[in-house]
């Protein structure tokens, strides 16, 4: 980050290549749109570049980055609330399970994606930060600015809803 603060774009490129996939996955899981996820990913690293001088290593860089991503996702969601984005077509989902046919896997992914999309925004964001980014409750609270108890409550409620919606998909 010191090199990035000095304006070195090669240092920023290193950061981008190291974290872009996780950032993009996180944004895509929250927003449900690959294009919006790409926009968030680009904007997040641009903000990192322009704010590098103010960065203080009081926490892990990833936690700070996810905070930026969480805020951007939240802003995108607020703006898109008036214009619901169409769900991407099922054929864009890659097969992730060898035991299922591609069509079955695509349908399964669709069910999960729609179930996650139906969660309230706060629950979805906490769930994505917890499951995809692997952040602890305290780190999620720091990233979102919410209290740790609120984060834990959102996480429990998200899992409750998903347990109901995906009950028929439960593996033995």
């Amino acid at each position, binding site marked *: 980050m010191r090199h990035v603060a000095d304006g070195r774009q090669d240092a920023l490129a290193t950061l981008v*290549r190291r974290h872009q996939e996780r*950032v*993009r996955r996180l944004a895509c899981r929250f927003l449900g749109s*690959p294009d919006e996820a790409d926009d968030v990913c680009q904007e997040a690293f*641009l903000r990192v*570049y322009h704010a590098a001088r103010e960065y203080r290593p009081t926490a892990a860089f990833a936690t700070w980055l996810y905070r930026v991503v969480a805020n951007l996702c939240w802003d995108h969601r607020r703006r898109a609330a008036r214009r619901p984005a169409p769900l991407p077509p099922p054929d864009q989902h*890659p097969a992730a399970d060898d035991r299922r046919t591609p069509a079955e896997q695509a349908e399964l992914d669709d069910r999960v994606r729609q179930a996650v999309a139906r969660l309230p925004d706060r629950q979805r964001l906490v769930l994505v930060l917890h499951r995809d980014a692997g952040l602890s409750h305290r780190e999620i609270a720091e990233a979102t600015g919410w209290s740790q108890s609120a984060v834990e409550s959102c996480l429990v409620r998200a899992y409750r809803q998903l347990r109901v919606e995906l009950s028929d998909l439960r*593996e033995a």
Partner: protein
Amino acid sequence: MNHPRELDLIELAAGHLPEQARRQTEEHLATCETCHRLASEIAAVHCRLGAWAPPAGSRDAWTDIEQALSTPRPLRSRPIWQRASWAVRVAAALLIGVGMGHIAGRLTLPPDQVGPLADAEAADVAAAEELSLHVFESTSPSGLFAIYSELMAGEEENREVRP
């Protein structure tokens, strides 16, 4: 029997429980069917979320970022709080300077020359002059010497007049 919280079961599924808590929870799950079923449901959700792969992106992040960095950011594209920040700072500095100057002035000027009090005092002075009350002005601490002198001068005149 202490049943684990749902949050603990979520953390167990995520592998975030400390070692001792994990052992205790698993020991309980081995003996409690209700909690074991709940833990299984939560673990299934956790697993399903991990198996879900978002669609692959079509753009390379660094290519977009490099292009954005090579294009200077126009002033209008910046948030209004960034564009206005320099003006806000200048205005705040002027306000603080004027305010401090005003306060300093109030503290250094004699009270009788400050604002409405000075006006009232000026009116009192004008009235005192009209009533010839200036005779009470004196350099003595008590201010009585001039009065005494006047009175004594008046007494002496009276003595001269009386037969």
